[in-house]
């Protein structure tokens, strides 16, 4: 799909496929086109070109929108409606049969932990509860796909954890597409990461994949005792697969060992310790931080 605002291309001919049951995290700097993409997926914005298919059917058909649950950015809600009425309203508009609506509301109230607040007006709720109401309305018609635009903005750390758990729980049976610019959130909740920048997809894969693509070189931190630092340093450097060794702290005999591209040296280091009767007290693989990958692909 593509979308332009005037001369500016907000989304530039991107295409991706999401498998059923997958939780996909949509990452990108502000203004990268995340929200525009989500608005097109939910058919709030008309696409300039392209199409969005759910199970082969275009989202342009009104009826197909039943399969999508949407939590827009900033979670707009009718402040003047009580929670229960609001959920009934949303369910009705999605064509949930009248007789099923009370059951669905009970289910959502339980799932989203809204029981204490269910009779209050939405305007009286705290931010965390409003967010839950937003999630509840997105799910009340049992959609196959959930589109969540920054579901945890403005929540306190406890609420963030709760919402993330809720999303993971949902992800077992639903396809979830969520956008965020909070990196740990993607790691914590998503199976797959899509990074978008200037309207284009610049990275696509699991957190693991992205790390491999981005860094290529494995770095391990090791603390090896029971020999002279000089001796250990030389022998480590001579190991196959090891590109360079850095002595971090001579007193505590800590090293950083960088492997050659595509190679790992954990085992070689371990065997070297055994051979030389050194004591290996720490061996920590250092993962490239997602932040670094993010910076890598979004700053050209």
């Amino acid at each position: 799909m593509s979308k332009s605002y005037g001369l500016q291309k907000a989304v530039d001919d991107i295409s991706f496929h999401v498998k059923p049951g997958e939780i996909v995290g949509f990452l990108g700097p502000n203004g990268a086109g995340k929200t525009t993409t989500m608005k097109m997926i939910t058919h709030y914005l008309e696409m300039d070109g392209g199409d969005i298919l759910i199970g082969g059917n275009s989202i342009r058909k009104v009826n197909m929108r039943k399969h999508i649950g949407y939590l827009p950015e900033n979670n707009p809600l009718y402040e003047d409606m009580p929670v229960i009425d609001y959920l009934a309203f949303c369910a009705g508009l999605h064509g949930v049969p009248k007789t099923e609506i009370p059951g669905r509301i009970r289910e959502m109230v339980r799932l989203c932990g809204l029981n204490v607040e269910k009779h209050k007006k939405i305007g009286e709720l705290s931010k965390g509860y409003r967010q839950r109401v937003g999630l509840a309305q997105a799910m009340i018609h049992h959609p196959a796909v959930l589109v969540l635009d920054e579901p945890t903005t403005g929540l306190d750390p406890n609420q963030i954890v709760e919402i993330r758990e809720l999303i993971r729980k949902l992800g077992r049976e639903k396809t979830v597409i969520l956008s965020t610019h909070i990196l740990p959130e993607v790691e914590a909740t998503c199976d797959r990461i899509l990074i978008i920048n200037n309207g284009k997809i610049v990275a696509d894969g699991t957190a693991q994949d992205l790390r491999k693509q981005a860094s290529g070189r494995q770095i391990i931190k090791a603390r090896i005792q029971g020999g002279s630092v000089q001796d250990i340093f030389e022998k480590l450097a001579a190991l196959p697969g090891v590109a360079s060794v850095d002595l971090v702290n001579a007193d505590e005999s800590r090293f950083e060992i960088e492997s050659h591209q595509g190679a790992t040296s954990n085992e070689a280091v371990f065997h070297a310790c055994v051979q030389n009767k050194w004591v290996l007290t720490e061996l920590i693989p250092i993962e490239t931080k997602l932040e670094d990958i993010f910076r890598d692909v979004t700053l050209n």
Partner: protein
Amino acid sequence: MKEIWIIARRELNAFFDSLVAYILLIAFLGFSGYFTWLGGSDIFFRKQADLQVFFSVALWTLFFFIPALTMKQLAEEKKTGTIELLLTKAISDRQVILGKFLACLMLVLIALALTIPYFITISSIGDMDQGATLSGYLGLILMSAAYIAIGLFASSLTNNQIVAFLLALLIGIFFQFLFNVFSSGMTGWMGELISNLSVTKHYESIKRGVIDSKDIVYFLSLTFLGLMFSELVISKRK
């Protein structure tokens, strides 16, 4: 159809929850009641068992009353972003517009229904032309439908309620008043055309008890155009 009704019911509830409905009903009944029963040329002064005064006053009260109902319909939804929720539901843009139209029309119908006691009272104290009265009510309903459609269109253009209100009045004043004024200064087909655009002209003819298909077509076309343009504006989001 069910979806239209769900939206209409929500809007109607919102009118009553926010006191808008009560304020407007009281204002409407107050004005029209005062002029019908107490004001200068009231029914006792005219010694005519009819509702002609009510119909004249109601035309103007509804003229101001309706933009106040329609102003928030789309403007507020756009401002708070709830329009995004509404339009991404499994409903068409047209159903959203029709639901809101229906809600406003129903509130007007409630207001008109509350004046039925006038009808009953007057027909019991004199010989009333019931046909003219019924067609007067029909005129009010048709004229309200047209102004609601115009109001919704005004509301679809902005996300500021005040702007929507004033814009609806501005468009409305042409139909209510200015087209009459313009046409009086013109002759020939231009004058004819412009005078035919006037709501008041068509309303007066229905109010007299003459239900002409020309007048009905006029009001229905105005309503249809207003709704069609509102839908067009709403569906053209960036």
